[in-house]
């Protein structure tokens, strides 16, 4: 296939592309889903196709196809260049880079292909049955998902790369109901790992704990509203890092001056306790990649250091515009989606405080637990994170459980209020969209952080 991609690149150059690349991808996804102790879905999905991408001046042309024959690729290559020439965006040329050849297999403990499907089905059934800890559990859901990506890329910079990515995820979710009230709880494990995700987990305990927590949720109370002291759990700290500071640090937003962090390098944007990173090399994390989808090796980007803003995440194009080095953040959902600046593993770095000490200092506030979702706002810097639940803190002690609520406010104002950061970082895997589409695997997280944040919940 590499030789066909080479041909396609040659054709795009001959047609007049300033820069071009050809990607081929095979994505195989295996899923086992169990609902209420019965196998609901056992499936394997396979995607195979190629993307031809050409740049002329500042405009890109794309053509994608599932037909990867020589004729189809060459035809698509010509179409990509025609589309690029029809655009009218301006931009600086992408500088030449040194050629590179590489062929990498995923480094995982136990490759999913080496484990039989029967064992996987039984594992998911075990997780599901374990959730039935109480008659108030009315519904249980369990899932194993494995994805293997075989990537191949040739670019006009003489990059000839092939690499594999493996991601595994297990998830359980229990629904509890009593006297007309229904609540749920979930847990997820996974990352750029193989079947060791399952083998290293006590599946019985994993499922049982989620069942117990779902039942506890039935007594959770309404959260207080207004501006409060809030200790964010790693997943909520991660939403603040990812959704607001992260999306606004993607350099395409900076080039367009759409981000509230434009021109902020060297300026104070938070308490000195705040350091934030995007690091595509964290072993086992869900957003880890050997190369981005433009063939740049993943790297560790310091975005905030001790409260001072440091720099942005870059693709080839934005790095050219800003005259800096690319950081390995040019990513695409799959071969049939566009490449643009995306995060990998984005998180606040650890501090030096113990969580119990952080709680002991709070007279009245909230400790969050588990996230539901968050939303980006690169223009305004607004923060919105939905927490699945939390706890009230009264006079230095955790007291009552609180049901789902939302945290909001201006991100920079929130970061300036940070007065304590715990000594342990945790990362949560997820899938990130940009704008309204283009979903890529990422992780986000951080330590427990103590801020002043506006809360509201029903």
């Amino acid at each position, binding site marked *: 296939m590499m030789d066909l991609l080479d041909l396609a690149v040659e054709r795009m150059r001959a047609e007049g592309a300033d820069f071009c690349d050809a990607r081929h991808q095979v994505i195989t996804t295996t899923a086992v889903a169990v609902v209420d102790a019965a196998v609901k*879905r056992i499936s394997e999905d396979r995607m195979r196709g190629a993307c031809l991408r050409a740049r002329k001046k500042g405009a890109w042309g794309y053509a994608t196809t599932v037909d990867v*024959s020589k004729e189809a690729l060459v035809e698509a290559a010509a179409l990509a260049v025609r589309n690029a020439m029809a655009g009218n965006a301006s931009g600086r040329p992408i500088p030449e880079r040194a050629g590179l050849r590489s062929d990498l297999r995923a480094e995982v403990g136990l490759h999913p292909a080496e484990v039989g499907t029967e064992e996987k*089905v039984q594992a998911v059934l075990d997780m599901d049955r374990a959730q039935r800890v109480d008659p108030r559990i*009315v519904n249980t859901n369990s899932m194993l998902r494995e994805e293997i990506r075989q990537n191949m890329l040739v670019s006009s910079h003489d990059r000839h790369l092939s690499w594999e990515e493996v991601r595994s995820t297990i998830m359980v979710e229990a629904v509890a109901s009593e006297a007309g009230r229904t609540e749920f709880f979930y847990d997820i494990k996974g990352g750029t790992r193989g079947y060791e995700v399952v083998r290293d987990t006590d599946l019985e305990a994993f499922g049982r704990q989620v069942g117990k927590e779902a039942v506890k949720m039935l007594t959770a109370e309404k959260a207080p509203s207004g501006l409060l002291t809030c200790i964010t759990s790693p997943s909520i700290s991660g939403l603040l890092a990812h959704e607001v500071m992260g999306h606004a640090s993607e350099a395409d937003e900076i*080039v367009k001056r759409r981000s509230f962090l434009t021109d902020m390098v060297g300026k104070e944007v938070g308490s000195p306790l705040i350091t934030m990173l995007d690091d595509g090399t964290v072993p086992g994390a869900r957003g880890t990649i050997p190369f981005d989808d433009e063939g740049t090796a993943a790297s560790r980007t310091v975005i905030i250091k001790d409260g001072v803003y440091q720099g942005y995440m870059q693709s080839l194009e934005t790095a050219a515009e800003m005259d800096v080095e690319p950081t390995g953040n040019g990513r695409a959902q799959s071969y049939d989606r566009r490449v643009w600046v995306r995060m990998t593993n984005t998180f606040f770095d650890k501090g030096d405080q113990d969580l119990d000490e952080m709680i002991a200092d709070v007279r009245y506030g909230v400790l969050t637990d588990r996230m539901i979702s968050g939303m980006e706002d690169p223009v305004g810097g607004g923060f919105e994170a939905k927490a699945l639940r939390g706890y009230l803190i009264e006079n230095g002690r955790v007291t009552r459980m609180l049901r*789902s609520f939302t945290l909001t406010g201006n991100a920079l104002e929130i970061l300036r209020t940070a007065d304590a950061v715990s000594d342990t970082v945790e990362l949560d895997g997820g899938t990130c969209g940009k*704008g309204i589409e283009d979903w890529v695997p990422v992780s986000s997280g951080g330590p427990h952080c103590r801020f002043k944040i506006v809360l509201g919940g029903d």
Partner: protein
Amino acid sequence: MDLERTAEKALRKVLEEGAKEAETYLVRVRSLTAYIDDDRIKNLEDKLDLGASVRVSVNGRLGQSSTTLHSLRELEECGAKAVALARLSRPDPHFKRFPGFQYPSGTVDVCQEDVLSATTETLREKASEVVRALGEGLKVPRGLLRAGVVERSLANSNGALLRERGTMVYAHFTSMTQGADPGEGCERYCSSGLSGLDPQAMGERLRDKAVNAQGAVHFKGRMTGSVVIPPEELAEMLLSSVGYSLDGENALRQRSPWKDMVGKEVGNRLVDLHDRPWDPRSSLSCQYDDEGTPTKERPLVERGVLRNLLYDNYHAQMGKVSPTGNYVRRDPTDPLNLYRRGGATMPVNLIWGPGGKSVEDMISGMEEGLVVEKLAAPEVNGVTGGFALEVRSARLVREGAVDGYIDQCLLVGNLYQALMRVGAVGDDPSVQLNCIIPSVLFEGLEIVGSE
């Protein structure tokens, strides 16, 4: 490749492999997209997608597989994989067979000529017109205009055989004022055709929204009042809550708040929801759903009373009822990779019948409240109905008049309770995703600001 014949041929092959029941679903898509970046045409994309999904039952055990499709060999491997997976599964307690052949209950043509003949050049011109309509002092940092042709064919072992072709158009543009502390606006267009997209009007709305958002002040304190939610925000709120509760599976699994509510009140008399799968304005409209059951117009909530839940074929067998023709794999925003998607049970087109009031009428009757323009992420917890949504831009209303624009506050409530307190229904329905709904005024929602 003739999709219908290939689907039938693949079905025979899967049955030869040992499947007792089987379904083959093939999709061919051409998708064109023009992306705007900072007022300029940044990307033009022309994509061809062809794929298949196979679902089988082998001795009461279910398996499924999907693949992109370049040759018949890939389809045969996909079928063999589905059979092999089914053999490794467990006996299913509910599944008997796929839907049998039935004549359609109604007709709709959602194949619009302006999309069939569209090129990337067509999209380029339309998208550029939107940008020009904004005028001086504003820009479109991001925008996309997409047009797709979706052909799908299905065959199953119970005699269902269908082929439908439809078109889709989706546009999503953001606008932004220049200078310090910019305001942002957002507009969306969903349809089966391009003709309803008025670039001038869209550009003007984008301009107004961004300018209004720039002048917004942060809301302080809290209040409980009337809140008007426009169609573009209400659609996602309804789909994540009412859509969840209408899904018969959620009722059967005891996780839906509407599980025992058919025939009972779930809203006040102004709540009037229907599924109208043959509306030509919506790109999801179809004669058959994505597993071969004929679609049908049906009331969902009439004057506040829940009339029907929706069932796909599997959960209809589980609940011992008939499937309602609501198994949907398609997406009104993106036509690619449909064969990979597990279907969801949802209204094909969720209709809230228009009322008689304009938004201005609603404002004049309000003591205190908001008219929302933009929410950060208008999602509701479907299990509980709870929501607390960041308001990015809204008109503040006091004593029947607009008192400026506000932002940075939370709109807090419970959607299921809010349906009992609908104060007015607007006369401005529009197509939003797979909803055709107007603005709706809800009473008694909480607004929480900082301090």
